[in-house]
């Protein structure tokens, strides 16, 4: 190979995640990393970048376009294959679970690719965990706002103390086996309909 450093291309519909993966790879010592988003002329762009390794998210419908490169075609000079380390099916499961897939130029040594794919898997998982945590935090904040608003309505229109208003909603939630925020939403809807 002319250059010992593999040229890595990240294709991801989510630019934030692509940035996280790119940073992970660069920090681990791979310096030739580029990223592209969804594109109508994907193959031409890949050809121009001539990557040795392609990291692509599993949700990306462009994967079917990439698959074309399995076939030795006139369009792509360097045949590409999906990275499948037959000795390590656990890694493939980990990759699919993380939502990432890798393609490599045919003939590239598996032991050189493996740490790259492992880094991508780790970064995909970390990104998903962060996103989940952020979503959960947002939804908790939202729930708390609903409960506060419902409590205020009960206090104002039913003359309940703050504690009684809270206890009433809490008890109803337990009785109906529903979330406190659902009950709060019902209270708000009920008052909105009265008005």
């Amino acid at each position, binding site marked *: 190979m002319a250059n010992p450093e593999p040229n890595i291309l990240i294709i991801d519909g989510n630019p934030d995640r692509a940035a996280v993966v790119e940073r992970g790879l660069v920090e681990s010592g791979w310096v030739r990393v580029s990223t592209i988003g969804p594109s*109508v002329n994907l193959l031409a762009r890949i050809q121009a970048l001539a990557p040795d390794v392609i990291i692509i998210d599993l949700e990306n419908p*462009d994967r*079917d376009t990439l698959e*074309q490169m399995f076939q030795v075609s006139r369009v792509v000079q360097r045949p590409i294959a999906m990275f499948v380390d037959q000795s390590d*099916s656990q890694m493939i499961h980990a990759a*699919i679970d993380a939502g990432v*897939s890798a393609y490599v130029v045919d003939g590239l040594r598996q032991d050189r690719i493996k740490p790259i794919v492992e880094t991508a898997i780790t970064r995909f998982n970390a990104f998903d965990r962060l996103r989940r945590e952020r979503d959960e935090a947002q939804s908790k904040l939202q729930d708390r706002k609903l409960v506060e608003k419902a409590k205020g309505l009960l206090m104002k229109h039913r003359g309940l103390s703050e504690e009684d208003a809270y206890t009433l909603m809490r008890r109803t939630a337990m009785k109906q086996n529903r979330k406190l925020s659902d009950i709060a939403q019902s209270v708000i809807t009920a008052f909105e309909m009265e008005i």
Partner: protein
Amino acid sequence: MANIVKLGFAPLVDCAIPVVAAEKGFAAAEGLDLRVERAPSWAALRDKLAFGLVDGAHILAPLALALHQGIAGVPATPLLVPVSLGLGNNAITLSLDLYERMQAAAPEVMAGPPALRARALRSVIDADRAAGKPPLSFVTVFHFSCHHYELLKWLADGGIDGRSDVNIGVIAPPRMVESLAAGWIDGYCAGEPWNQRAVQRGIGQVVVTKADIRPDGLEKVLGLRADWAEEHPAQVAALIRAIVKAADWSRDPANRAELARLLAGAQYVGLPADLIELTLNGAIPAPHRNRPDTADAHRLLLEMTAAEQLDLSEAERGALAAAVWRPDLYDEAVG
């Protein structure tokens, strides 16, 4: 319930039958906890199947054969096809520019049967070649797909060699219309609603439909992992029965609107229900076409050979078809 069966599907209208089996209680009535998982691309579906993340899948019929044979880009994965799911309603859409050039080049051909209209395309290609222009580009949904073979056949019937006279690539159907609009491609072969969408937007023209190229040609099947099927014979039989009942329900015109609403859900096809309802015609095969017919596998293997994807002797093709297509399992379960 312990009888969990996981099936992958692609978000297309003909995923209807397994979705209905799961959603309308036909699988539960057979004692199965059927879970269907959406895959965004054929490659993703193939991976889930090949690496055992699902037990089976709604899959392109030629992809099932390719996966079994080990030519689909992942290690060979023995599969069984115990029931057929769809015949497809594909068409070939061309850019307005190309369609008009064909009209101008050979109006008498364009007025004739659609199956032979590629003869007009032949004239356009000859003119381009004489003028030193680059070859035209077409795309299909996947290289192991009936769409690919239908495009090749239509071109061949017009005297065009799909391997050397034009470029043929792959683009996911949701990107096809924009690619045509951008002039990146000159035409495509895809299922509905992707042809109607280009026509509605005034970007393309349907030049021929599958009914003219390959009427009654099988397109989608249920592919099961052979190792899973061998360990779970009772579940396989129950699944076939649930699928057949779901097909009966889906075929009933009285259920058409409800089916369209069900498939419109974001977890299934994720397109407007009225559009889905329009394209449901022909998506559900006639009852006798649910039974796997080995003749379909033989025909597909010949098409794969013609497309230079497969190089097997006639005896080897016969053995491959008999190993994957399993009407005996269908008969045992339903008979």
